[in-house]
């Protein structure tokens, strides 16, 4: 198995590691029994992801894709963020070994889970049902 230089660079120097204390949305995906667990924190302002942090228990690919996906969605609208796929993450990393492709799913799912959480909280906060606006 061989990682691209870009994967290694992101693994060694991951961007946006950490937590956001009072995040607008938090997504937790993966399962430590399977060897990976990712928590994604987002701050949203005017439908834009203004800040994002992650914590990941996992292999090099899990950490690198976590890092890369945070870069990709930062300063993007929710809609744009939701359109980012695991393939985009992998492409930006110059590929992943086939056996590691499933790790990139985690990154996509992590963002989606955080956004879903954000929307749920917003639903509650707004005290009205926005179900019809959810496009995804």
């Amino acid at each position, binding site marked *: 198995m061989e990682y691209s230089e870009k994967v*290694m660079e992101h693994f*060694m120097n991951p961007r946006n590691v950490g937590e956001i204390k009072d995040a607008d949305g938090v997504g937790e995906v993966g399962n430590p*029994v*399977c060897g990976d*667990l990712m*928590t994604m924190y987002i701050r949203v302002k005017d439908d834009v992801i203004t800040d994002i942090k992650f914590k*990941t*228990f996992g*292999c*090099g690919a899990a950490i690198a894709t976590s890092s890369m996906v945070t870069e990709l969605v930062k300063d993007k609208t929710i809609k744009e963020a939701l359109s980012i796929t695991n393939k985009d993450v992998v492409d930006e990393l110059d590929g992943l070994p086939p056996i590691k492709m499933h790790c990139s799913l985690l990154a996509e799912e992590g963002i989606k889970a955080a956004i879903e959480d954000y929307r749920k909280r917003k639903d509650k906060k707004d005290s009205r049902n926005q179900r019809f606006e959810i496009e995804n």
Partner: protein
Amino acid sequence: MDNLIYLDHGSTTPTDQRVVEAMLPYFNKLYGNPSSIYSLARESKRAKEDAREEVAKLLNAKAEEIVFTSGGTEADNSAIKGIAFANKAKGNHIITSRIEHHAVLNTCKWLSGQGFTVSYIGVDKYGVLDLDELKGAITDKTILITIMHANNEVGVIEPLAEIARIAKDSGVCLHTDAVQTVGKIPVDVNVLGIDLLVLSGHKFYGPKGVGALYIRKGTKIASLLHGGYHEGNRRAGTENIPGIVGLGKVCKIAMEEREEDEKRVKALRDDLEERIAKKIDDIIVNGHPEMRLAGTLNICVKYIEGESMLLCLDHEGIAASSGSACTSASLEPSHVLTAMGIPAELAHGSLRFTLGRSNTKEDIDKVIEVLPPIVSKLRKMSPFGKG
């Protein structure tokens, strides 16, 4: 790879330069096919038989009880399938352990699709086989017990002599995968009382692609590879003469240097173990405290994952391995650690150092210097909140 600190001798070892030199003439000076009759070929035959003597000597076996193979995996396949197919009329039950190498486990698994049934005996938290469970598993259909001599992941040495006694009492053939012990601890087929044994050259400074199968005289066994008449009709295929010569040479070296090596490696490993335990919180040392290979240290580092530690270590020029799912081709963490009762999330965070001849005190110092910051960096990234 000049400054490499190699701590993965359990995976493979560099071929001893003396071994390489012994092999060289057999590539293109004494290149004859030992099956031919002219003098060039007789030289190859002689070299092969000399090598067989050396292998036999190391195991306290007879030369004619040794069959050369292409490695440990082929030898394990030959032993297990060979006994199974030769004893079909007698029974169809095989007993093994839950912590065997895949060369044994997957061979047994294949046989269970061929009309055989397999019992997988458990181990305690140290990885030691449950002898009572073994005894209870034997039936009148049992034709083979196959239990490894020492485990490759945690280094635990199984009580083979006791297992042999149990096997003998029931008249069942006993095979052992000794790939991790030959050349490292004393392996005497008669003291151990086993019927078949497998070793592999590249695990103790011999070449890759050559191994041997010991078959006690009188043991009924079918062959795995069919073809020409080689190895007393027990393994077909033109012999890998340079490899065989290399295996003979490394067995000779092991006879002379094994004991000294073991002492030195054990001192280094003990030092590593002690200092890691002192420097890093929340770790577990896996395997038996005493009944363990001198060179092996397997730990679980809580809250973080194995592959990411390996990558960071590699970045510092240190080669090690892990029982994490991410370093295996399956998506499961080490079957050995889980059989020992270690939860999956911990098993994913295992780290195996296997020390060997090349290692020095400086190597240990370097690990102690770089591992703690690696662990704390990764723990800071971990969602388990212990960063």
